[in-house]
């Protein structure tokens, strides 16, 4: 069993005051993961300049943990190089939130997957542009 009281103060803060909600204009990469039937969907858009993520925004349908991890991951990736960003895992996001209830750990996978999908999308786009050039 778990109850909502188990959410850390940081989770509640990121849930109540989520950072970086929305979509980056002309994103360098975007990733949408999850499934409404499973109860959570996350869309992450990133802006990359000179190999560094300069902006990241999210939109999430999901529980408190899904929203808080989405918010946290946007904070964590900003200023990071692509290689550094790829080192972010669901565990590091959860740790940055002072942990999640055990049963909610799977929600943080959404944030990691969305980040990987957005980076993948960015890499595909840049590869295409390089080809064109």
């Amino acid at each position, binding site marked *: 069993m778990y109850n909502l009281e188990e959410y850390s103060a940081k989770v509640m803060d990121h*849930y109540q005051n989520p950072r970086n909600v929305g979509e980056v204009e002309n994103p360098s990469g975007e990733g949408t993961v999850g499934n409404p039937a499973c*109860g959570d969907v996350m869309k992450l858009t990133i802006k990359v300049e000179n190999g560094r993520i300069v902006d990241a925004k999210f*939109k*999430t*349908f*999901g*529980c*408190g943990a899904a929203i808080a991890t989405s918010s946290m991951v946007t904070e964590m990736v900003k200023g990071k190089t692509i290689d550094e960003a790829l080192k972010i895992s669901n565990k590091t996001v959860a740790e940055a939130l002072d942990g999640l209830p055990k049963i909610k750990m799977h929600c943080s996978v959404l944030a990691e997957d969305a980040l990987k999908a957005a980076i993948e999308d960015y890499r595909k786009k840049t590869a295409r542009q390089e080809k064109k050039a």
Partner: protein
Amino acid sequence: MKIIYMDHNATTPLDDEVLEAMMPYMTDKFGNPSSSTHAYGWEARRAVEEARGQVAELIGAHPEEIIFTSGATEADNLAIKGVAHAYRDRGSHIITSQIEHKAVLETCKYLEKQGFKVTYLPVDCYGMVDPEEVRGAITDKTILISIMFVNSEVGTIEPVEKIGAIAREKGVLFHSDAVQGAGKIETKVDKLKTDLLAISGHKMYGPKGIGALYLKKGVKIESLIHGGGHERGLRAGTENVPGIVGLGKACQKAGRLMEEEAKRLTKLRNRLYQGVMNGIKRVYLNGHPEKRLPGNLNLSFEFVEGESLILSMKNFAISSGSACTSSSLKSSYVLLAMKVPEALSHCSLRICLGRSNTEEEVDCLVEELSKNVARLREMSPLYKEV
């Protein structure tokens, strides 16, 4: 900050008059009803029998047809296992529905392991069992039908009367878990045509840890708890005298207030529903639009996950059928049995109004819901795509 309680299907606060009636039996009047040799025992026995009369009166039964239990879960267990074992020589088939309380479903599953066959009938999109499907499921091996009176999640009132009539016609015993109906809407055993019926104290402003099983005269059951022959040998163990007194008083008071309170709660519930429907788009009602419990409302707010909505309204005590609020990580089996799409099952909210709730609180909830649904939809990647 006062948290406004709107989860009365989960439990209710203990009524002041009920507590007052119970107190002497937790202090001075501590006697054991089985002590036949002195006044302590006599007064405890009188209190238990008075309560038995009050419970019987609420459901239109004879006092000797009431067996006190530790709660409705035990009453359901006693009814189903009790009948199953007492009538095993007649057959081994039981009929129930997919949306019963776990106290019924898990008991049936247990009996399946003991060799009984159980039919779990489906429900329609309102959560309603079709009496004709019950009829169709009866075989010459059927010994028991168990269908709840009111569903605790979606508030749908089942056609128990019709099912009871079919059971009588076919000569099959009929049990009903009436936990959510008793004390809130008229629950009379002769009208509902049930042979067994389970009720609970804490769902009607009585104490936790006490319930009762109605057992129609002439119906046999096997006892689950053996001992000193209490409750006509059907439920051994020294009586929970304060609990029994509390249940009796709660039944008496609920019976007295029922008509007026049901009207008031229906009006309040409709005000809430209208407020939500006028202020928020893409909201879906779960359960039956008319045949539902007065205080119950179950809604799905599309594109907004239930737990996150509840989390944003921490000054309201409400619940959700979303997978994210359950430890099993599965959506409510009741909503899924009603074929509510899975995406919407995650978006459900259950609001159960009770005696303490006011128009002002309901209006405040509508306002909070509008604000937070808008905020969360703004955040939802699914919303813009519509």
